[in-house]
């Protein structure tokens, strides 16, 4: 009979760490993770929260995904935008979403934004910033609309308008000049689009389209590719070759069946006995 440790394992395997340190010392670079670069924003308006994000995912200098989704689902009326390492943000938000569902079932109440924020910050603090997830969390619950920002080391802020990611300065400039409390829905949506567009056009790490998500007490509306300022134009000339440009010299059809030998099985007339 052996004693199991009462505590669950941390979920990561460190047996290669000595080898990795050795390789790193010898000059071999660590593989680069897909990062989201990003401009993510959140803004409080009269009826709730609007979240906005761009849609470019980068891998070093290459664009890995031209239309990725950065606004992740947490619960029905809570959403989270993620910047930083794409895998980290997706895994963390998916994991917290599952935990929130279990929590809501266990307490019997509608989930609250502060609960999500606390779960996220405790998880990120535990990993000391190695989980590269910078998040903008927003939602409406029974206590009203809330907007939080969570940094990779676990610190949080509660603010009426937030921006994160490499394009955060461009977006924040737009917010600082035009945000005012109790905006109407259209005004707020235009402001969020302008902020994300500022990030898209002025930051290399952000690009492609604008996604927006409007969360109110009654419903959540996801506007995927709300603005598409970077659509590829159709080429002016056609570069395909017309049929018959090259004549073919010979044709050879190979039959896939080389040799076919049919043997009937059980067809000697043994019918089923149904007397």
């Amino acid at each position, binding site marked *: *009979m*052996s*004693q*199991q*440790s*009462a*505590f*669950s*394992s*941390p*979920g*990561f*395997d*460190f*047996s290669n*760490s*000595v*080898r*990795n*340190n*050795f*390789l790193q*010392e010898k000059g071999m670079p660590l593989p680069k993770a897909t990062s989201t670069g990003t401009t993510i924003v959140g803004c409080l308006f009269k009826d709730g929260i609007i979240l906005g994000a761009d849609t470019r995912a980068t891998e070093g200098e290459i664009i890995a995904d031209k239309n990725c989704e950065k606004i992740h689902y947490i619960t029905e009326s809570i959403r989270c935008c993620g910047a930083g390492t794409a895998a980290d943000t997706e*895994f963390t938000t998916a*994991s917290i979403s*599952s*935990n929130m569902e*279990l*929590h809501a079932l*266990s307490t019997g109440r509608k989930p609250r934004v502060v609960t999500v924020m606390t779960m996220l910050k405790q998880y990120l603090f*535990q*990993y*000391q910033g*190695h989980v590269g997830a910078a998040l903008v969390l927003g939602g409406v619950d029974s206590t009203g609309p809330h907007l939080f920002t969570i940094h990779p080391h676990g610190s949080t802020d509660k603010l009426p308008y937030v921006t994160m990611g490499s394009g955060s300065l461009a977006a924040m400039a737009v917010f600082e000049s035009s945000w005012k409390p109790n905006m109407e829905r259209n005004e707020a949506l235009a402001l969020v689009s302008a902020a994300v567009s500022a990030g898209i056009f002025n930051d290399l790490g952000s690009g492609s389209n604008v996604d927006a998500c409007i969360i109110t007490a009654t419903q959540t509306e996801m506007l995927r590719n709300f603005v598409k300022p970077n659509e590829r134009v159709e080429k002016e000339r056609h570069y395909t070759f017309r049929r018959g440009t090259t004549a073919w010299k010979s044709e050879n059809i190979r039959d896939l069946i080389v040799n076919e030998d049919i043997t009937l099985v059980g067809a000697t007339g043994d019918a089923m006995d149904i007397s």
Partner: protein
Amino acid sequence: MEPSYRIVPPSQIKTASINDTAGSLGLHDTLQYGIRSIATEIRGGQFENRIAKWEETQDNARLHMLANLYGPSAPMRLLMERQIVSASPHMPGMPQSNIHLDILMGRDETLDPTDFFLGLESGPPLSIHNEMEKKLRL
């Protein structure tokens, strides 16, 4: 662990040992891990220690608070229940699940990365002999 209010595992004195990399002869296994270098063994141990000891440290703080509120019998009783439930007759190499222990530890209402990876972070055990040795030496 000694009773303390710490919620974050303390940083350990930097040590280098061959526990991680020892082969069957008890020496550093150069074939599998490369030439032995004390510098690489010291670096990177702090983070691993932090997340390995995280749950234990938080649990210890909680038990210490219970002891201060209700007396030393409260944590003693909880620890006794855990110990009774942890005795497992199964082989250590295979994935194990102990739902009674999960309920006692409060893990029945949460999902951790461990649950997603089902204990398969490192793949099947390379040698069952090593696993059995470790188990029976306990």
